[in-house]
């Protein structure tokens, strides 16, 4: 491996690998420990990818590589309560603070019959062997830098299952909160979501932090959508400005399944959201969309990869962003259509508004199509707010600032056009409104 393909790191964290973190050998043969050890080895070998690697071309981890990340300390109950105040949106919630499950702050009582939620760092689990075999494949060490550091240092592993045939009307919120004191900490939440056959549910991930030191949250989420199941997945990333957010979300879709993802990305100094969907079986649909708002020197990289590996599948990508000051937005959208597939429909659009001469947006569509029977489209547009529109609004008495904010809102609102849940729509409308008024004034 060429040396300049990676950044060397010297995180104190690496020296604190906890062999005994998961007491119970649920999978047998010390499976988890051995995969965690392998992961540690991979990270030591790979370190962090540099901008010389194609996938990381626009997103530089150098700043992260130079910091001294430690494991997070446990917070006391008072601190936890303070952290969650006014942070949750919905009644049904799972709260994870600094990578640890907080059962006393969580509440899933009204969906008790429809879901199962459990964490592996728990003494009291008893499940059939075939269930653990099912989960196992999502806990294998990978020769990928961020996945390996996550598995090696995840303090716990969370599994959410939506039971076969169950419909959950009210969204279930997964709240990730993080806090560091003065030191730099690295948190590695790991979640597996299984939407069992013919289930239908909505989850919202909210990621927020409150840190005086540097905080790196490195999420890995595996999502499995079984036959005829539907999952709507929303995410609001609003971590603090001292934080770095890297999230790798991998989705596998079965036949006649549906997955939609909406990401509102506005927090963190550096954020990278990778969303990778595999349409493994026929008649799967996935819609991946979202919006980002950046100011100051924020940088956001949204990396979507959709693999059409079976026939009669539909995919859509739609991301809009607004950047101000010295910020930078990146959208990389890959579409892969496999050789044997038929009747594929894959669309992609990314649009951006640049508000300052020092801000920039990079968009990189990448289409790899190996089949003839494909309907595919992609488009990119990046521009400024329309001055004629601003004058028109100002001539009616609307201040320049408000006119700009209204135009930004009008631009972004197009990303919400496919959201059909009125509670979610209202919530995201408010969040977008809030972000625009806080960021672009």
């Amino acid at each position: 491996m060429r040396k300049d393909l990676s950044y060397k790191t010297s995180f104190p964290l690496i020296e604190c690998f906890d062999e005994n973190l998961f007491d119970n050998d649920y999978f047998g043969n010390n499976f988890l420990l051995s995969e965690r050890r392998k992961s540690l080895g991979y990270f030591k070998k790979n370190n962090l990818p540099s901008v010389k690697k194609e996938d990381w071309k626009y997103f530089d981890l150098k700043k992260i590589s130079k910091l001294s990340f430690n494991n997070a300390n446990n917070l006391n109950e008072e601190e936890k309560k303070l952290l969650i105040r006014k942070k949750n949106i919905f009644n049904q919630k799972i709260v994870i603070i600094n990578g640890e499950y907080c059962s006393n702050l969580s509440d899933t009582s009204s969906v008790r019959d429809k879901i199962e939620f459990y964490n592996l760092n728990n003494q009291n689990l008893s499940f059939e062997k075939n269930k653990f075999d099912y989960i196992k494949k999502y806990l294998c060490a990978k020769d990928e830098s961020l996945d390996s550091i996550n598995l090696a240092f995840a303090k716990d592993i969370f599994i959410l299952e939506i039971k076969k045939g169950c419909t959950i009307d009210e969204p279930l919120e997964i709240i990730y909160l993080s806090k560091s004191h003065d030191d730099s900490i690295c948190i590695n939440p790991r979640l597996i979501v299984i939407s069992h056959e013919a289930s239908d549910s909505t989850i919202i991930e909210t990621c927020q932090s409150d840190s005086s030191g540097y905080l790196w949250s490195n999420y890995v989420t595996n999502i499995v959508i079984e036959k005829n199941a539907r999952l709507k997945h929303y995410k609001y990333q609003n971590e603090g400005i001292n934080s770095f957010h890297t999230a790798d979300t991998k989705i596998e879709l079965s036949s006649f399944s549906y997955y939609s993802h909406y990401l509102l990305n506005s927090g963190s100094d550096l954020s990278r959201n990778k969303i990778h969907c595999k349409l493994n079986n026929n008649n799967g649909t996935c819609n991946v969309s979202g919006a980002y708002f950046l100011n100051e020197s924020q940088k956001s990289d949204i990396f979507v990869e959709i693999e059409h590996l079976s026939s009669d599948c539909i995919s859509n990508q739609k991301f809009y962003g607004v950047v101000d000051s010295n910020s930078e937005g990146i959208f990389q959208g890959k579409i892969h259509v496999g050789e044997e597939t038929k009747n594929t429909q894959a669309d992609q659009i990314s649009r951006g508004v640049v508000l300052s001469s020092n801000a920039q947006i990079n968009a990189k569509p990448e289409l790899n199509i190996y089949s003839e029977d494909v309907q595919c489209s992609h488009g990119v547009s990046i521009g400024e707010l329309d001055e004629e529109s601003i004058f028109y609004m100002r001539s009616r008495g609307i201040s320049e600032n408000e006119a700009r904010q209204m135009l930004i809102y009008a631009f972004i609102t197009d990303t919400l056009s496919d959201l059909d849940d009125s509670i979610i729509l209202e919530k995201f409308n408010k969040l977008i409104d809030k972000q625009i008024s806080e960021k672009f004034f």
Partner: protein
Amino acid sequence: MDSMSNQKLEIKNLVVKANDKLILNDLSLTMNKGETHAIMGPNGSGKSTLSNVLAGKSGYEIISGSVSFCGHNILGMNPEERAALGVFLSFQYPIEIPGVTIINFLKTAYNSLLKARGKAEISASEFLKLIRDKQKILDISDEMTRRNLNVSFSGGEKKRLEMLQMLLLDPFLSILDETDSGLDIDALKSVSEAINLLRNENKLILVITHYQRLLNYVVPDFVHVLYDGKIIKSGDKKLAIDIEENGYFKITEAA
């Protein structure tokens, strides 16, 4: 605002360039309250520049001269400050803004003006009542006000919407930049009705037009001919009829 005594527009020796080209050349015009003036002129005479400069559009270089309205030098003000003072421009080509609904736009504009004038904003229900009264005059449905601003509107619909905004915002100085262009006879009547409804002893109305057609319905007190950036002739309604019959040629030739 109602207490303002000096409701008068005074344009003195205005010289304006755009893209280094002289557009308005020593233009002077005085309008007193209660008066309706019409400015006519051939293409390229500077009509739209005049209306844009009055409303505060950027991109024009004011070389010399002054514009005062209600005792304020408005050339130093931004567009929203002028709007707060009571200046309104009905656009020749109203702008289409996808994603902004008419009703939201109108409410924001109305409340912005109230706020700028130090008054309390009004509630959504009060606003709806107010706007519905104005909608009736122009036969604009609620369905239409829920649509995006000017998007996929016909020429006539756009102009009627401009008139709805004018009636709602109730300006002291209304500048109507070719509001009659592209209108069929029914729309023309509807637009004229709105303008006449606004006319009273306190208002100033400046109608900018190519043709005298609109002036049959909105009868002006004064008619001016703008040519090469200055007013070359002023008169009453008869001047407009004369232009309609004989064209601009005789007047411009004399100038």
